[in-house]
């Protein structure tokens, strides 16, 4: 009986002690270790290089990069922040997704970080700015969207870069008639067809930021002729996607393009690194606008870095963010950013990668804008995603697709 009681006491004690044991370890004095949360699991190598550079600037600060799977990032970040185990520094999504976390009190107010308000243009600050002007993060990088194409096959088939959407369809037709899979895009993961393809080409049909604002205010309707034409374009492109594109995942698409099974891939700039070692010559062109309209680029402010309001090392975290706002910090950052991420700071920064510059060159002389739903219409993300998928599967007409989204506005 005595022995039993001892065992039970130990057990109950364990239940009580577990939480205490779990509180984590404190770092020794002087040395400070900060953690950085991110949704970029692919960028560990590059980010570690950048953080090692920072170590030279601030020798007593070590920053550890701890990325999470992209689809789980927001959920897990919130989970960590709720449990006070959030990272000290973290990537912040633009617009509503980031604003929510600032409003919930997780992100620190970054407005007075030295250099922030001076070294970025207003339009580059806006995605991480609250209505009252407060900044909740330091802009870090933008991404672009374009058509990746296999130059070898284009050359072999005597094809030229299409200058209009109609030309683009003609190229697709030619390739298909010669036995190729013209486009690598699929629908299985859902987000990619919307974010890279539909929203990537939408400015071609509806125009840039000044037009977007008119849709947001309700002055223009989400089922006007321009929008219907955009959905129709998706329907027109669908037959040139892989056989069974309904269940082709984003990764499948990458593999199809990388293994030369598909000739083109409408995708974001962040994928450029994947084809670094490709055994063929590839290039990029802007998704072309229909005849009579100007080609515009979806150049999307994607990531910013912010700090945890509850961090135990606010000074060190703040110092890192301030460094990102300086010329040397920003230069160092963009040199170490993965290919396909573009600095947003005002200083002229030259990129070395061929394809990165190819992406930037697409911007010249064209209007650019963020992805359509991000700034104000995030509620329409899922309905628009479904509308695009349905119209590509031929379940609804372009008009019906546009109507179904407009009805929710």
């Amino acid at each position, binding site marked *: 009986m005595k022995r039993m009681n001892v065992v039970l006491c130990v057990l109950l004690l364990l239940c009580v002690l577990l939480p205490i044991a779990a509180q984590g370890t404190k770092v020794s004095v002087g040395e400070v270790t900060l953690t950085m949360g991110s949704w970029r699991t692919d960028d560990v190598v590059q980010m570690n290089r950048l953080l090692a550079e920072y170590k030279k600037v601030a020798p007593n600060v070590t920053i550890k990069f701890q990325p999470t799977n992209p689809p789980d990032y927001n959920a897990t970040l919130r989970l*960590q922040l709720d449990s006070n185990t959030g990272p000290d520094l973290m990537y912040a999504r633009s617009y509503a997704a980031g604003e929510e976390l600032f409003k919930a009190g997780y992100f620190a107010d970054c407005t007075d970080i030295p250099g922030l308000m001076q070294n970025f243009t207003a339009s580059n600050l806006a995605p991480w700015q609250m209505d009252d002007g407060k900044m909740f993060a330091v802009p870090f990088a933008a991404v672009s969207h374009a058509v990746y194409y296999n130059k070898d096959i284009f050359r072999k088939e005597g094809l030229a870069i299409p200058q209009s959407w109609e030309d683009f369809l003609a190229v697709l037709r030619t390739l298909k008639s010669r036995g190729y899979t013209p486009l690598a895009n699929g629908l299985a993961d859902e987000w990619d067809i919307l974010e890279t393809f539909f929203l990537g080409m939408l400015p071609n049909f509806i125009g840039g930021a000044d037009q977007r604002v008119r849709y947001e205010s309700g002055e223009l309707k989400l089922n006007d002729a321009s929008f219907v034409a955009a959905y129709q374009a998706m329907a027109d492109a669908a037959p040139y996607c892989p056989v069974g594109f309904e269940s082709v995942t984003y990764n499948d698409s990458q593999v199809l393009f990388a293994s030369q099974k598909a000739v083109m891939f409408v995708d974001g700039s962040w994928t450029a690194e994947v084809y670094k070692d490709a055994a063929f010559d590839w290039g990029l062109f802007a998704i072309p606008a229909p005849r009579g309209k100007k080609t515009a680029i979806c150049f999307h402010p994607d990531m910013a870095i912010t700090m945890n309001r509850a961090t135990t090392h606010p000074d060190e975290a703040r110092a890192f963010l301030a460094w990102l706002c300086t010329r040397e910090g920003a230069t160092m950052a963009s040199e170490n950013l993965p290919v396909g991420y573009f600095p947003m700071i005002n200083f002229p920064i030259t990129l070395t990668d061929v394809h990165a510059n190819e992406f930037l060159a697409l911007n010249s002389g064209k209007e650019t804008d963020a992805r359509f739903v991000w700034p104000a219409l995030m509620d329409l993300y899922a309905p628009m995603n479904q509308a695009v998928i349905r119209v590509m599967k031929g379940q609804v007409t372009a008009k019906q697709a546009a109507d179904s989204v407009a009805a929710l506005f």
Partner: protein
Amino acid sequence: MKRSLRRQRMHLASHLILILWALVVIFPIWTLVINSFKSRLTIYENPFWIPTVWNFSNYSTVISDGDFLTYFKNSLQVVVFSLLAVVLLASLASYALARWRGRLSALIYYYFIAGMMLPIKIASIRLLEITRTLGLLNTIYSLPPIYIAMGLPVGIFILTTFIRQLPEELFEAALIDGATKGRIYSLVVLPLIRPAVASVAIYNLIPFWNDLWFPLIFINREDQKTLLLGVTRLFGQYQTDWSKVLAVLTLSAIPVLALYLAMSSQFIKGVTAGSVKG
């Protein structure tokens, strides 16, 4: 003569059906294993046949990656600790519930047994808050309490039934010798219920080891992830390289599979123990 012939023919049909299903079972496993020895691009050639060149680097990469072993260690700790705790707590409670007869005892028994039919997942939102309050969020310590609570109902069901069937004379003899309850538990009950304890442990092994839900909603720190949660991370990391993904999947399936193949009858007995009265 005629009947035996008929019986043979009946067995022929049985064999056909069972062989067919066995193929349905083995074919995907075959696919899993052989393709884990291919490489990123060769995996697209002859999907269901052996590789032309055997590539072992997937496994060495996955293992030397470091994280995989951390995940494995975390899972092992969580599962072993939870199983030991379930067995200990369930056997103590079952001893009491089996030997102490009365209305209250029956009530407590049914209170426990009700948990067999109620999935704990639907309490996740509240569990998230409790775990947060205890400061266990984002650590592997968040998992054992829930797994123990999950495992207790079946454990108590199996062990109480078993202890009730032990011969009364054993207890009477011990009591006459002046043994206390504690002595009876450790000297009489524990040694005798060993086969049932094995069933309890095995019954809970699969859901504990293979649980994705609670790690998914509780844990985000790399060094605290369990194997299954880690697999989703590696799935993301190697997403354009299916051969590595398959190596990860194979490695994660091996522990339970090996244990099962080594003691399949015990396993089947354990897993079905929750429903079939002994």
